[in-house]
């Protein structure tokens, strides 16, 4: 390895290597690999491009990045589980600090109180937001949060029949099925009301069986329709099953918390809370439940304890649930989680505070209402369902959504998600539109204008 050859991030000089080998009485690096069968080894080098200098790498990655259109060069009304709320600059500045970014899981609490503290405050904050105090340090994303929660209800109730609303994101349903297939859980789908787009509560009641562990639903659901969580909670509790609600965390700036409305386990995709869209990830899975169910939570939990001097300290607790202790009996396999994104969510909520958070929710809702009214005033355009919405709504168009979107794209507008993209079986004239606080009235008016023209073509 001549000195001038690129060696990535390696730190030894030839002399260092010789010195270290010498200290061990070895001659070559090969002497360290005597246990590795020779004939299986890679012959020469891997077939990978030669090392790039930093400037070559930067240029290459910029070229790739530059080939993507984005929500900053387009006016975007995309939602469908990931939302373009503003991400305050403080979050990036703090979450990328080396101490946070390059630390491991806080297994050594004495060296990691800073990390344990933000995780603990994250748990407290999510507990408040969702009205359910038992919260873990996060799971992978909203969909896996729902899947993990589904299994929790099976563990808690000892039953393996699950009801799910047909109106959850199709992707969430797929993940749920993928997670539960091996667990021997059967899943049955509860219909939505054709008029309102809300859960058909009669059908829900009918579907509940003695073996049913829980009903899983989503609000706002995949039509953007806000469910009546109190009513659903009542039905479930009356008929002796648990319920799990997946939702959009910002909604609770305006609505009561799930825990105050009869929800047993609330899960959220935390992305709207200060995470960049990142072409889909990493995002943040949040699970909150009642204290009595805490022992069934997946993943890490930070708790208060003491140090040798009797002073307050924080540490990972209740590890008897986890894979490294309980192994095949663990509540979940999750080990690495989304800690750095939990930090982002906590910073986001700390920056906004009570008022700012409410305002984000309200602005999003009001702007969505403004756009909805103007768009449905266009000939032939109407909402698919009559149920209430938050900041996302589903429209019937007089033409295929894909055609309208293609026209909008020419004007650098991502006009929404054609329902067929989320659900191949959906009618091709349905369009799902999301609005956040970041859109100005001028943006919305511009959208209306271009949209109306596109409908007429």
């Amino acid at each position: 390895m001549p000195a001038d050859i690129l060696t990535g991030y390696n730190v030894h000089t030839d002399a260092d290597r010789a010195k270290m080998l010498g200290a061990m009485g070895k001659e070559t690096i090969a002497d360290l690999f005597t246990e590795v069968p020779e004939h299986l080894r890679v012959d020469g080098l891997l077939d990978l491009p030669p090392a790039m200098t930093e400037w070559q790498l930067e240029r290459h990655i910029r070229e790739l990045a530059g080939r993507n259109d984005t929500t900053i060069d387009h006016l975007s009304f995309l939602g469908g589980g990931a939302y373009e709320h503003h991400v305050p600059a403080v979050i990036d500045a703090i979450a990328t600090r080396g101490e946070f970014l390059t630390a491991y899981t806080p297994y050594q609490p004495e060296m990691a109180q800073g990390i344990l503290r933000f995780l603990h405050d994250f748990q407290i904050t999510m507990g408040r937001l969702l009205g359910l105090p038992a919260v873990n340090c996060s799971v992978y994303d909203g969909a896996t949060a729902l899947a993990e929660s589904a299994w929790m209800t099976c563990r808690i109730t000892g039953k393996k029949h699950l009801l799910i609303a047909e109106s959850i994101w199709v992707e969430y349903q797929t993940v749920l099925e993928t997670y539960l297939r091996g667990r021997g859980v059967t899943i049955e789908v509860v219909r939505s009301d054709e008029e309102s787009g809300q859960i058909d509560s009669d059908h829900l009641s009918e579907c509940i069986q003695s073996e049913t562990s829980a009903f899983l639903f989503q609000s706002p659901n995949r039509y953007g329709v806000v469910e009546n969580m109190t009513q659903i909670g009542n039905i479930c509790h009356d008929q002796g099953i648990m319920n799990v609600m997946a939702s959009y965390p910002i909604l609770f700036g305006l609505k009561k918390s799930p825990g105050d409305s009869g929800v047993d386990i609330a899960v959220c995709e935390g992305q709207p809370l200060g995470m960049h869209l990142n072409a889909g990830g990493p995002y943040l899975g949040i699970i909150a439940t009642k204290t009595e169910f805490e022992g069934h939570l997946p993943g890490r939990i930070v708790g208060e304890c003491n140090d040798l001097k009797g002073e307050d300290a924080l540490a990972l607790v209740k590890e008897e649930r986890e894979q490294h202790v309980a192994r095949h009996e663990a509540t979940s396999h999750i080990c690495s989680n989304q800690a750095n994104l939990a930090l982002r969510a906590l910073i986001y909520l700390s920056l906004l505070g009570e008022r700012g958070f409410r305002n984000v929710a309200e602005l999003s809702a009001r702007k969505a209402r403004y756009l909805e009214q103007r768009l449905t005033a266009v000939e032939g355009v109407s909402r698919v369902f009559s149920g209430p919405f938050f900041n996302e709504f589903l429209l019937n168009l007089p033409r295929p959504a894909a055609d309208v979107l293609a026209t909008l794209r020419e004007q650098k507008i991502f006009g929404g998600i054609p329902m067929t993209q989320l659900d191949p079986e959906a009618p091709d004239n349905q369009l799902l539109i999301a609005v956040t606080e970041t859109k100005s009235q001028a943006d919305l008016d511009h959208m209306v204008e271009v949209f109306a023209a596109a409908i007429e073509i």
Partner: protein
Amino acid sequence: MTPDSIYTKSRPGVSGASIVDHDFALGGSLDDLCAPEDLRDQPIGLPELSEIDVVRHFTNLSRQAHGVDNGPYPLGSCTMKYNPKRNDKLAMLDGFGKAHPHQPADTLSGVWDLLWKLQNGIAEITGMDAVTLQPAAGAHGEFTGLLVMKKHFEKLGEKRKTILIPDTAHGTNPASAAMCGFTCRIIPTNDKGLMDLESFEEHLNDDVAGLMITNPSTLGLFEENIELIAEKIHDNGSLLYYDGANLNAIMGLIRPGDMGFDVIHINTHKTLSTPHGGGGPGAGPCGVKKFLEPYLPTPVVRPVDGIPQPDYDRPEAVGKVKTFFGHIEVLIRAYCYILANGPIGLKTATENAVLNANYMKHQLGDLLPSVFPQNCMHECLLHGGSLEVRGADFVKRLIDFGVHPPTLVGAGCVHFAEEFDEAMLIEPTETESVVSLDFVIEQFRKVAREAAVAPYMIETAPHHASTAKVIHNEAAWMSIYEEPED
């Protein structure tokens, strides 16, 4: 002292962010949203701080954390190598960060191209034929791989329900297997630190779907019998799963695919240098041999008409393990890492990782004898039994000297069999220089010397950390560490 909660700094009515739009009046009723009684009528109880107070709170919290950026972090099995800053910067470019996953696929060609090239890079490094980047972490990669295995047997019409797992396996292995509905059978470790072949063969029957192993194992040893094991597994119609958490020991030198593994996952946050983030996010790409490719979760990114893009037309797929396409922001870093190293850099990394571990093992040998005589790979397991203090106390004293403790039973996510109670698993990684290693070695020696003369100093350590020794949380560990009486 543990730092204060942000709630202690909350001031009612304060908001660090001004959220307003003069075209849209706020504060009126929004009664079309839900029944009036379902509208929020009480505050949530969020922290209320000005922007500067938020910045100060978290800046100061960060100063009570220790990352690779702060100093040596020889935490065994965790591969705490340097996380290149250029990767952070490039991963956060707006062209990725501001892209919405539901954008039309043809507006994200840079993303698909990157993922496709990264898949190929990982396939080349691991010797597999196809890779999915969807899994969010190592455990998730395992889960994906095991689902693929399960599907394989379903397709064959076989109902194999057993997964064999060595007792040294990481806890996620049995946990993931259980999630897939498999039954775990645990194979003991022999006195050479390798999988007990006899026991393995005893357990091998037609219910065995596969064997899941880490190679090198979490004892830092290369499984020398791997060829034989692969042969026996395949002869039995079973599949061989590779837990790639320890790939850093062999990257560029020997490939799981060439050793006979059918399914693998890797942890980008270990081998491929993506940051651990205080616990996550990581990424756990899963690779398979060609015959298993149809089962990889939907979508896979692959060229259609020459242009890489997500392919959703996968009737045989196991489903989906999470939303969208994986941890893009993490995966960009992994891709950058491979490119910045090139094949020589990657191979050198492996050599140096193994060199460093053997050097530590050798230099500490008189104090902390190696549990096993052979060469270790990227990490070494040293025996603390001859110390005057408990290993769990010993390592806490290292904190006072700026060294992150190595992995002990429980104090990390690795499980060791009982006989290794006092063992320490040390993984220096290749990015520690010999100066840094000598520093770490000296701190170990310093603590060992102190143990002989002032064990109390060690039993009550750390003395210079934010808190004294935290005691409460050992309870959970104790249950496996001390085999409680009750």
